[in-house]
């Protein structure tokens, strides 16, 4: 049994929150540069240039890439041989979110209750925490701040097996066309297939938070990712929806075993500020 003090979790989360919001992952910067080189639309190239300049300013000034510093989504893989001391896990994570967002000058975008008062919690807590118990004696924390412009364009459709790959393609393309400029293209598109209602959504979220350049380990799904990216870039939506061939820079598919009667499809779109940070304790 390895002991990890709760305060180490808090410190890691606070650091990841600021890093993720201010430092665009280098893979995303490279993807934007590549897109700019190949984009035929002059307006599109101009916008991609502004996004690269923005990322550069954000990194230099340690200023948030986007003012929507999101709800804090935390993926935590906790080794079963870890014993957390001096506090409980979720409280430690939320203390880290509080520190990161308050001390790091990030925006507080969380309201404590959705329907009646919608009172801002003033420190961006609570985080949305997805915990897995895994073998080993380490904790892997992946923090992915998620803005609402793209999140609001998420889609879940419970298809049936007869709808097949054609049905899946249509759900995804319809989601992208509906999202258009609202989700701040160029996008990173996360697709979750299979499972049930909530697992399909979680697969889509994990897919959207994957590193740019990673591919599904199953060759059939990797080929489907490539095909979807080509299709999405034929919609003409382009950077910021003002036209062009760079509507998405990546499509990531994650899947799970499902029911004999179901083919759930979830789409979770990430904007070009596809932010995340990771730490292993």
């Amino acid at each position: 049994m390895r002991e990890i003090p709760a305060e180490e979790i808090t410190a890691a989360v606070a650091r990841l929150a600021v890093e993720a919001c201010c430092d665009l992952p280098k893979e995303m910067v490279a993807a934007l540069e590549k897109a700019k080189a190949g984009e035929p639309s002059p307006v599109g190239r101009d916008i991609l240039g502004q996004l690269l300049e923005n990322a550069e300013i954000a990194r230099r000034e340690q200023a948030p890439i986007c003012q929507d510093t999101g709800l804090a989504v935390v993926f935590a893989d906790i080794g079963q041989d870890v014993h957390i001391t001096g506090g409980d896990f979720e409280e430690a994570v939320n203390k880290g979110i509080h520190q990161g967002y308050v001390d790091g000058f990030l925006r507080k975008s969380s309201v404590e209750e959705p329907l009646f008062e919608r009172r801002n919690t003033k420190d961006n807590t609570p985080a949305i925490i997805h915990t897995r118990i895994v073998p080993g004696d380490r904790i892997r924390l992946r923090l992915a701040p998620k803005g609402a412009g793209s999140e609001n364009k998420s889609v879940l459709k419970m298809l049936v097996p007869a709808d097949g790959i054609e049905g899946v393609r249509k759900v995804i393309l319809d989601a992208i066309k509906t999202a258009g400029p609202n989700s701040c293209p160029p996008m990173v598109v996360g697709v979750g297939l299979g499972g049930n209602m909530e697992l399909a959504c979680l697969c889509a979220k994990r897919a959207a938070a994957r590193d740019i350049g990673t591919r599904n380990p199953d060759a059939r799904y990797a080929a489907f990712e490539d095909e979807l990216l080509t299709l999405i870039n034929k919609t003409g939506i382009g950077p910021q929806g003002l036209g062009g061939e760079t509507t998405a820079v990546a499509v990531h598919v994650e899947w799970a075993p499902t029911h004999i009667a179901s083919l759930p499809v979830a789409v979770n779109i990430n904007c070009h500020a596809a932010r995340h940070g990771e730490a292993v304790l």
Partner: protein
Amino acid sequence: MAEARRITAPFDDATARSLRAGEKVLITGTILAARDAAHKRMVECLDRGEKLPVDLHGQVVYYVGPTPAKPGKPIGSAGPTTAGRMDAYAPRLMDEGLKGMIGKGYRKPEVVESMKKNGVPYLAAVGGAGALIAERIKKYTVLAWPDLGPEALAEMVVEDFPAIVVIDSEGCDYYEAGQKPYRKL
């Protein structure tokens, strides 16, 4: 791309009506900052027959909820938010004299109708370019409802604020015109 046209805010009627869909602009002057919660309160104010905290005639509203300013800076990151969420309130404010809107994303047909009626253009700033846009904002002053935090009604002094006209006061839509040549599906 064509050179950007330099314009000043607030807008007079002639400037507002002269902007054309697809035109790139740099705005200098004073604009308002408001998003969901401030819009709701403005419309509630009007419903009660009260005066708004600011006269809307000629004003340009930027849909934004900035991050907090670091010491020595006027504002934090300040890119546009999705304009469609303000669709429920926008026609009412245009009837009160609002002359321009800056955000990102599609607008509802009834908003476009009100824009045509009132001679109001809708412009887009680059979504997610919050750090870059912040450098063009020189001053940020909360005018009302500080309890709303990043959603408070505020005034901004801007210099060469970059935007593109996406729907003009005649209803021409550059999202449609810009996308069409590249649509292959």
